């Protein structure tokens, strides 16, 4: 059996006294895109932050290539080859687009390869090419999201953690960004752990998916199966069969709680 690139084992993470994640396990194999779905407050972001070291778990292990990396500083984890593209873009607002990308490659010394990768980023996100010298804070939301993904790519990570890339973007832009995410995976061999609320977009690009609810995993499986599952359809895709009486009663609404 091959070792998964990233494996979380029974992670429990707290915000002070509040347990945000209660014993979550997942794994990501090299070369695949894995999606974690969940509503607001399900603990998806917490999960990613625990994986990248921004939050320390109280119990459980984070294994990267089979080595335990939990409770280390996030810059140390990043140097191992995990690039975290945080929720809400979080670009460096007073640095130019080019400088933001350069910061993504902070720990790389191979100048020529870095220059080539900058070009690759502009190929994937042609809109950024004309904005090289623009301060990142003045970009539109979609441009900032592209910059954030490009900045993550610049580290040439073994694993990219993507936190809600569709947040606050128009439907066309979401399609565009997910198409690029799929291409990065296919063409660059980039392994991606994707956290999303937009189940449709995310499951279409990913191989497998997990579903989180109030801090725990409630479902997992191949993406195409999840797309067909009745619960996913109802909760995340908004499709449902009309009830017998033409209208469903709210009490019957299923939850995992």
């Amino acid at each position, binding site marked *: 059996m091959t070792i998964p690139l990233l494996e979380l084992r029974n992670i429990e993470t707290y915000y002070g006294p509040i347990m945000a994640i209660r014993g979550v396990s997942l794994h990501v194999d090299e070369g695949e895109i894995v999606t974690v779905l969940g509503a607001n407050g399900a603990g998806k972001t917490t999960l990613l932050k625990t994986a*990248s*070291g*921004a939050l320390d778990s109280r119990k459980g292990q984070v294994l990267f290539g089979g080595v335990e990396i939990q409770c280390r*500083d*996030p*810059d140390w984890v*990043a*140097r191992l080859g995990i*690039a*975290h*593209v*945080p929720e*809400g*873009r*979080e*670009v*460096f*607002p*007073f*640095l130019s687009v080019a*400088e*933001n990308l*350069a*910061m*993504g490659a*902070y*720990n790389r010394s191979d100048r020529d390869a870095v220059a080539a990768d900058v070009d690759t980023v502009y190929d994937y996100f042609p809109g950024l090419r004309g904005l090289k010298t623009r301060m990142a*804070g003045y970009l*539109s*939301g979609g441009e*900032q999201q592209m910059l954030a993904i490009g*900045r*993550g790519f610049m*580290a040439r990570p073994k694993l990219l953690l993507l936190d809600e890339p569709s947040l*606050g973007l128009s439907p066309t832009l979401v399609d565009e960004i997910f198409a690029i995410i799929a291409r990065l995976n296919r063409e660059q061999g980039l392994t991606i752990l994707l956290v999303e609320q937009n189940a449709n977009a995310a499951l279409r690009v990913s191989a497998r998916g997990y579903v989180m609810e109030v801090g725990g995993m409630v479902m997992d499986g191949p993406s195409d199966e999840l797309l067909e599952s009745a619960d996913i359809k109802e909760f995340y895709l908004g499709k449902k069969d009309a009830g017998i009486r033409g209208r469903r009663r709210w009490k019957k609404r299923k939850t995992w709680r």
Partner: protein
Amino acid sequence: MLPMSDVIHLAITGIAQGCAYGLIALGFVLIYKATEVVNFAHGEFMMLGAFAVLTFSEVLGWGFWPAFGLGCLSIGAVGYLVDAQIMRRIIGQSQASVFILTVAFGFIFRSLAGMIFGWNTQSLDTPFDGRIALGGGIEIGTDRLAIVGATVVLVGALYLFFARTRVGIAMQAASQNQLAAFYMGIPVKRLISFTWAIGAMIAAAAGALLAPVTQVDTTIGFLGIKALSGAIIGGFGSIPGALLGCLLIGLIEPFADYYVPSIKGVSAYVVMLLVLFIRPEGLISQTYQKKA
């Protein structure tokens, strides 16, 4: 009315004084931008710098320039250690605790300096003891010119460092979005300590260059409070603003002291209050609202 030559003389003295404030304010702003800590012990770095240079050059007799370099470096090391060993542990606690800690550091540094170097005022011999005639009967001490020159050089060097070098840009990045900088693998903690070192070094340089003007004793660090008001006038968090604000109070001070001797020494704070009433964000403010 003052004769023109006196006006020019006062203005040059004021600019020199403003530059000295500016050097100290640079440290305030750099550290504030990196950590959101206002280091009330920053003036003490300046005082320690003056004593360190004094020790190396007068007591050990190594000459002014080697002593100047060594003094700045050793205070830089003190700044680095203050952050790496102590401040880092208290980050994330309430602003009040951080404030009290830095004030306490001020007291500790003053007492330590008094115990080690003595409480008397001492004088430091610098190469800048001549006077230059500017024509029209105006003479200016080279010590003042040295402060202005050093400020221009240091500010230029810092600008190039922060705008051009990889580490400098990473320090900017870490101050703009610390978590994102961590995610990029930037060693944020080390860079923050390094920022403290830079701030402390500049303050130490200011202390040594100001020594001919202020002499050297344990209380010269209180100049830091004037530098702080200069930084507030300029818009706290903006480096050009801090320099501008400090130049402004440096320029206003000698004239205010001449025309309104009754407020001698407090004119800087009067100006600060006025600016805060009219433009609470300071003269140059750098603010950014994150897109939702």
